[in-house]
C-alpha cells in the first residue's frame, strides 16, 4: 500500500513534480499515465528512495523512503526505465547478483530462479550471457531480478517500452498474476491501451501535477467522453506528448 501526499521536486527552475498525491492499494494495479516529461519517472525515483523529495509525504506500507531507505528497498521490487543488465554475465548470474545483494542464501536464490524461469518462460536463455538479448528477453530478466526477493510492492517504469505484441501480452499476464497474489503494483506509462487493459486505478499526471485520478469508468464520466484517449486529452488539456 502506497500513500503519496503533495509530493514536490524541483531541479533548479524546473518543477518536475509539483504536488502529486495518490494511493496505490494492495491487490490493485495503479497506472501513472502521462505524456513524456510529465514527472512520472521522477515520482517513481522518489518512491524507491533514489531521489529525496523537496517536500510532501510518502508512505509505503507505513515506511518513509527518506528515513527508512534500507527497509523500503527490501520491500520494493523495481523495474526502472533503464533495464541495465550486465552483458558479460548470464541472465541467471544477473538475477543471482541481486538476490545476494538482498542477503538471500544460495539455495533460496536458486529455488526462486527456478520459479521465475517457469513463470516468465525464460528457460531458453536463462544460462546465456545477456549480450544481444532482445528487448523482450531483457525485460523478463529485469523483472525476475526485481522480483527475486518476493517484494510486496512492485514499481515498473514504462515496462512495455520496446516490446513486441507477444512480449507485451506475456508481461500483462504476469502483472495480472501479481495483482491476484495481492501485490500492490504501480506502473508508469504513456500508452493508453496499457492502462485501459491493465489498471484498476488510473492517475493522470501532466506537468508535474495530478490531472485526474480514478477508475477508467470514473475518468470517462468526468470527461464526458466515449473513449479513454479523448478523456485523456481533455483531462490534461492538450495533445502534447501523446504521439511519442
Amino acid at each position, binding site marked *: 500500500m502506497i500513500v503519496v501526499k503533495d509530493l514536490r521536486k524541483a531541479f533548479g527552475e524546473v518543477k518536475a513534480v509539483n504536488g502529486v498525491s495518490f494511493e496505490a492499494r494492495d491487490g490493485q494495479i495503479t497506472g501513472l499515465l502521462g505524456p513524456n516529461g510529465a514527472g512520472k519517472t521522477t515520482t517513481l*525515483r522518489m518512491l*524507491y*528512495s*533514489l*531521489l*529525496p523529495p523537496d517536500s510532501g509525504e510518502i508512505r509505503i506500507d507505513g515506511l518513509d523512503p527518506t528515513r527508512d531507505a*534500507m*527497509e523500503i*528497498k*527490501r520491500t*520494493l521490487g*523495481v523495474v*526502472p526505465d*533503464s*533495464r*541495465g*543488465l*550486465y*552483458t*558479460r*554475465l548470464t541472465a541467471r*548470474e544477473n538475477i543471482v*547478483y*541481486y538476490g*545476494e*545483494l*538482498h*542477503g538471500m542464501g544460495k539455495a533460496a536464490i536458486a529455488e526462486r530462479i527456478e520459479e521465475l524461469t517457469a513463470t516468465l518462460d525464460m528457460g531458453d536463455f536463462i544460462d546465456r550471457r545477456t549480450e544481444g538479448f532482445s528487448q523482450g528477453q531483457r525485460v523478463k530478466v*529485469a523483472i525476475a*531480478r*526485481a522480483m527475486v526477493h518476493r517484494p510486496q510492492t512492485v514499481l515498473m517504469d514504462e515496462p512495455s517500452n520496446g516490446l513486441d505484441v507477444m512480449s507485451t501480452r506475456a508481461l500483462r499476464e504476469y502483472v495480472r498474476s501479481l495483482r491476484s497474489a495481492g501485490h500492490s503494483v504501480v506502473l508508469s506509462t504513456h500508452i493508453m491501451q496499457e492502462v485501459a487493459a491493465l489498471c484498476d486505478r488510473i492517475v493522470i499526471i501532466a506537468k508535474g501535477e495530478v490531472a485526474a485520478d480514478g477508475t477508467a469508468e470514473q475518468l470517462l464520466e468526468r470527461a464526458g467522453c466515449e473513449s479513454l484517449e479523448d478523456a485523456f486529452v481533455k483531462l490534461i488539456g492538450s495533445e502534447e506528448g501523446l504521439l511519442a
Partner: protein
Amino acid sequence: MSGLTTVFLKEVRENVRDRRALFNSLLLGPLLFPLLFVGLMWFLESAERERQEQALELPVVGAEYAPSLIRFLEQQGTLIEAAPEDPEELVRNQEKPVILRILPEYPEKWAEGLPAPVEVISDPSRQESNAAIRRVKMLLSGYGSQIASLRLQLRGVSPQLASPVMIKDVDLSTPKSRAILAVIFLPYVLMITAFTGATHLAMDTTAGEKERKSLEPLLINPVPRWQIMTGKMVTTTVFAMASLALTLVSFRIVLPYMPIGAFGMDLTLGLDTLLRILLVIAPVAILAAALLTLLASFAKSYREAQSYMGLVILIPMIPSLIFMANPIRAEAWMMAVPLFSQNLLIGEIIREEVVPAAWYGLSIVSTLAIGLALAVMAATLYNRPKLIFGSS
C-alpha cells in the same frame, strides 16, 4: 559487509570475462614495459659498441701542412680521407660527423714553436656525431701532449714539471649502484603500472556502469552505497596489484637477457627484493584506485572518463621526471610524500642500500592515509542523486 563482498566478487567475475580489462590491466603493462626496457638497452648498447669499434673516418683539409700529425692519426687507426670541396656544407648536411681542417699558417707557427691552429668542424648538437667528435679531440690532444713532452725533453726539462697534478680514480661504486638506468626506469614503470592497471576497472565500474544504465537498478538494492563503491574500489585495487606483481615477475624473467656490462649493470631481482618492492608500491595501487574511481564517478560515460584519465596518468610520472632531471639524495621527510617516497625507496632497494624501517613505515602510512581519504570521498559520492542519473 556481505554487500561489499558480493559486489567485489561480481566485479571480479565480470571483468575477468572482459578482454579489454584483461588486456589493459594484466597484459599491457606487464608485457610492454619490460620488453621496451630490454629493447632499449639492446639498442643503446649495440649503437654504442658500433661507434666505438668502427674505424674513425676523417676527411682532412690541408693535410699537406702537417704530415707528422697525419702520420700520427694514421698510426692510431684513423682513415684519413681526401679533402672535400666544402667541409662546412658536408657537416651541415650530416654527410660527415666531423672534418679536420689544418690552416695554411700551421707550418709557420709550428716552426716558431707557437700553437699551430687546426679546426674541428662539427655540429655537437647532433647526438650521433658526439662519439666521433670526442675521438678526434682526444687524438689531437694526445698528439699535442706527446709533442709537448718531446720539446721539453729537448730543452733539458723534465716533462713531469708540466703536469703538476696527478689524478687517480678511486671508484667506490658497486656494480649494483651503477645500475642507474634501472634505478630511474623501474620506479617509473611501476608507478605508471599502478595507475594503468587501475584505470580500466575504475572507469568500467563507475562511468561504464552509468553508461550501461545499470547503476540506477543497482542502487535500489538494500546495500549501503559506501559498501557498493568500496566493493568496486577493492576490485580495482586487486587488478592494479595483479598488474604490478606481473610486471615485476616479467622484469625478473627478462633481466637475465639484458646486455650487462656496457652500463656497468648487475641487476637481479631476488624474491626478497620483489616482495619488498611490492610492499612499498602496494599503497600506491590503493591510492590510484581511489583517485581514479573518484574522478571516473563524475563522468557520464566511459568515453568522458577516458578524457580525464589522459591527464591523471601524468601524475605518477612527475616524481620520476624530476629525479631524472635532478637526482637528489633520499632524506627522511621525503618519505611522507606519496609517489616521491616510492620512487626513492625502490631506487634504494635496487641499489641494495640499507633503508631504515621507519622510512618504509612513513611511506606506507602517508600514502595509505591519502588513498583512504580519497576512497572515503569516492565512497560517498553516489549519495548525490545528480551523479547517479547523469544528465537526465
